[in-house]
């Protein structure tokens, strides 16, 4: 699939770009409230921690505007329409709601691919949806069920799968550990590492700081507006955090099914 590098707004608008070994792809411009360019590496897993600021960042990246009292507002719709490919390049896995209740799980996942007529090589929307369902390990007998008939954990998995069905360059995970039982966190860990293998940049927003520190490559510091490595972040927090996170990472890696 060809990605357009056409930036249709003024050069001074902040941009989001993905760096690959062979070059950089400019995905487009961010919302008007954003103040800095955002360069990430392909396959990088970046965590956004601690409270409302990360969610605010996600909303701004998607052009959804600031989060106000738990609702989502859309002040940037005009600029959204001029950047259609930009928003296909971003996959969003929402926190807990957003599945269409009149569609089955597989139809929910197929929806963006089918609507945008997206194909990946020889894989059509059906095949892409089935691939996403297998990767997130949803049992096949549940594929034709409705969201209201399955557990919250399965719904969360479907939200994650839907975020990557169109093979986006960047996937935004909004609190992915929400609704995941603690014993199933290795599945989530494995799935996020799978995105890294597929050279997909993951922006992970969560309040589950130990999990984020175990899975991420870098942490976005909203105060200094810069990326920090995990080691730099843990140096600030203290040595006991370092031990804890190392043990948690080891436990997750040992528990997850091999990729």
């Amino acid at each position, binding site marked *: 699939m060809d990605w357009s590098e056409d930036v249709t707004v003024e050069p001074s608008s902040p941009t989001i770009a993905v760096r690959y070994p062979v070059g950089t792809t400019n995905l487009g411009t961010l919302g008007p409230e954003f103040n800095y360019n955002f360069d990430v590496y392909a396959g990088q897993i970046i965590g956004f921690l601690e409270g409302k600021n990360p969610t605010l960042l996600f909303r701004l990246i998607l052009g959804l505007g600031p989060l106000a009292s738990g609702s989502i507002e859309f002040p940037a719709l005009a600029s*959204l329409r001029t950047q259609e490919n930009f928003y*296909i390049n971003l996959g*969003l896995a929402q926190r807990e*709601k*957003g599945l269409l*209740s009149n569609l089955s799980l597989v139809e929910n996942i197929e*929806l*963006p691919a089918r*609507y945008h007529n997206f194909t990946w090589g020889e894989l059509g929307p059906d095949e892409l949806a089935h691939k996403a369902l297998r990767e997130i390990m949803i049992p096949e007998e549940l594929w034709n069920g409705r969201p209201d008939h399955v557990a919250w954990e399965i719904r969360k998995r479907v939200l994650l799968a839907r975020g990557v069905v169109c093979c986006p360059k960047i996937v935004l995970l909004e609190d992915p550990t929400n609704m995941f039982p603690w014993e199933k966190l290795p599945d989530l860990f494995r799935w996020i590492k799978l995105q890294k293998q597929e050279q997909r940049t993951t922006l992970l927003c969560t309040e589950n700081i130990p999990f984020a520190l175990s899975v991420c490559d870098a942490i976005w510091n909203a105060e200094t507006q810069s990326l920090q490595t995990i080691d730099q972040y843990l140096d600030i927090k203290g040595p006991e955090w370092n031990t804890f996170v190392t043990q948690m990472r080891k436990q997750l890696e040992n528990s997850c099914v091999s990729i």
Partner: protein
Amino acid sequence: MSFVGGNDSLGQIVVVVLIRELAPLMSSLVLIARSATAVASELATMKVQQEIEALLAMRVNVKQYLLGPRLLAATLSIFCMATFFVMAGIVGAWFGCNFWNYYPLFQFLNSISLSLAPADIFFFIAKTCLIGQGIFMVAIKSGMSLKKAPFEVPIVTNKAVVDALFVAIAMQIFISGIFYLWIGVKM
């Protein structure tokens, strides 16, 4: 009617009362009661569940994906309902005619066809389709106007019914007025 020798007027009465006025009105009432409430509550529930926002985040055109098919369905369904209403009304009228005296079916249908002008058919189609679209646009607007909370769902549904009723009757009067003005001008 046979007592006063008015059998020949039956066709005209069927056309004026049933085809021009009663069929579109009754069909619109059925559409409001059955479908407009469902559409309003469904869209309101989708808003509460953040399904509309999910569609927007997936860059799915909500008007094309959700609203367009519903408007098309309203147009087709009210037209079909009104047509069935007319057919049932004609059959019922004929049975009523035959209650006291025998009135041949062919003669009855012939009197209807003589009274039915192309303008009647055109306005029947236009009236039913436009009223159907008007009803569903009101229902869609009400459903999408929900702000945040689930308790607002029955409120917007009730509002949809009342507004749709008002719109249906107003459009019925307006289109009938245009029709009779047009006939008057032609004469």
